């Protein structure tokens, strides 16, 4: 099931010529976890999310955005 949290990690990574393994080593997770995050299948912890933003030197909301399900929207 896809998470309601979307991200631009793939684009940010491609812009810096970084592989999934490079990013995984920098943020301290496995390559499979980076892949799952990129596919919106897994929502990382807040700590990992901040580490990703720090690696790309961008604010957190440039990396992740929350697409609330219709029931949650006001």
């Amino acid at each position, binding site marked *: *099931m896809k998470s309601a949290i979307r991200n631009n990690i793939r684009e940010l990574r491609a812009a810096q010529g970084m592989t999934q*393994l490079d990013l*995984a*080593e920098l943020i*301290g*997770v*496995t*390559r*499979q*976890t980076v*892949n*799952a995050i990129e*596919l919106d*299948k*897994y929502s*990382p*912890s807040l700590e*990992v999310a901040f580490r990703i933003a720090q690696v790309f030197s961008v604010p957190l909301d440039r990396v992740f955005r929350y697409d609330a399900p219709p029931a949650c929207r006001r």
Partner: protein
Amino acid sequence: MSTLSFQEKCLYAELIGTVAFVGVLLAFAARASSTLYAYPRALIAYAVIYFGYSFVVNRRSRFKSGDYLIDERDWMIESKGIRASHNILVIGVVYLIIRIVDAPTLSATRIFNRLLVILVLSSVARIVQMLRLYQASV
């Protein structure tokens, strides 16, 4: 580069080991004239093998922690797998208690036999649930 993570490789090894254990036990039970002590011994052997394996895997994952063999996602998947395993254990133990209360003459061999089946089933449930979650890329 392998597409399987360290945890997935361990799970496949565990699944093969469990199937081999059950195969050997069934082959022994089919040939042996008496299985009086076979199930208690098999239960102990299963527990020793399982805890030995867990000890080795935990040591390796701690030793290689700098290479990030295990992370938060692995822990989350493991907790979901353990939950599935506990569900089977609870159902199995309740079933076993009902059987014992229902038939107090139930022999110790039969109780060990059922206990072994419950343990193997709960272990398989955990492995299958975890592999399913890994396959789904959760």
